[in-house]
């Protein structure tokens, strides 16, 4: 199964431990995470289901290609990392 982990910056707002997820696409994997942690959805996705502008998702060290539909496919053993692009001031 793919593994998913989250930036420590998210832990300031809510708990999101790393873990193994099912799902053949990023969307399916995230939906599984959100089913157990519904509040996390609004931190990573906007109300239309797209990745927030300043949220980044890498799979095996590469940025995902489809930030809107999250259709990138996942394979067993993939490493998914959710973090933030720089924002501040």
């Amino acid at each position, binding site marked *: 199964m793919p593994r998913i982990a989250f930036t420590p910056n998210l832990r300031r*707002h809510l708990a999101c431990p790393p873990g193994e997820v099912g799902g053949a696409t990023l969307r399916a994997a995230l939906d599984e995470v959100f089913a157990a942690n519904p509040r996390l959805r609004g931190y990573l996705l906007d109300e239309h289901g797209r990745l*927030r502008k300043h949220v980044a998702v890498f799979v095996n060290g590469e940025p995902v290609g489809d930030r809107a539909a999250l259709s990138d496919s996942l394979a067993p053993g993939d490493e998914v990392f959710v973090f933030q692009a720089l*924002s501040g001031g």
Partner: protein
Amino acid sequence: MSDRLLVATRKGLFIARPEGGDWRLGRPAFLGEPVSAVLHDPRDGALYAALRLGHFGTKLHRSDDGGASWNEVGVPALPAEGENPKALDMIWTLAAGGAEEPGVLWAGTLPAALFRSADRGESWQLVRGLWDVPERARWMGGGYDDPGLHSVLVDPRDARRLTVAISTGGVWRSADGGETWRLAGQGLRNEYMPPGQEFDRVVQDVHLLSCCAAAPDAVWAQHHNGIFRSTDGGESFEEVTAAAPSRFGFAVAAHPTEPGTAWFAPAVKDECRIPVEGRMVVTRTRDGGRSLEALSEGLPQADCYDLVYRHALVVDGTGTRLAMGSTTGNLWVSGDRGESWRRLAGHLPPIAALAFAAG
């Protein structure tokens, strides 16, 4: 008696409390997070703070214990319409519903939309009647790329009567709790529009509306183009021409019981936006806008570059205490109707909004 002052800043929410005849500023909640709007609900004492997280979106928190602890509640969602629908950028203003409708809240957002909650912010519904007005296609961005709804007035005599303002999109009124909307704001004048379109009510760049709580038909508008006064609830406005040192600004605070009294924080127009000649003043009218006086005691009178955002000049329910916050992180308070000011803090993060909380 106002016993708290809420200070929403770029780096957290500060709460000041009276102490020995002065104010004492507490440690911030949400340290490091931009707070875009704050509300004290006088009906149940709840506090609300809207966050505009740089990475993780807009959040809304409610406190039922005076700010000691906070719980995240729901946020508005913009409708999924069109090929690339807009997402919520921030909650720009929050307003409590009427006394007879406990739990009802209103939120004005960027991009411009009005939302209603009937459950103290747990869930939000788009006010479809305003979203669907055909004139929305002509709303434009003001200081932001998208138009934003920054002012919500709820008529204390009849909470179904709502008045909102959009930058830029004019003044809109509903008499039926938000079901249907009419474009109001006759007489507002936008100087920068092409010749012949200055009085087009849809393009008016109202920066903020504020009304007299005891006489809510007295509505003041700080507009991009100047100061305007309405005596009919915002249906029509007259321009206040006596507005020295500048008619430009963002903030306005209407006196809670005297319909002819209001305060403003003038700045150099259009993009410069600093105090005129580096001197910080608050202007006040007490005669319905026929004259304005510049009040400067206690405010910096040289080399001052502070700008007061639209929600950062407020008056309390007695009309005696005022507070003003700036983008430079100065927070001033007055205990004598703005006659004199004292700096409560000088090194805060940029201040977005203030609110007095009584009780």
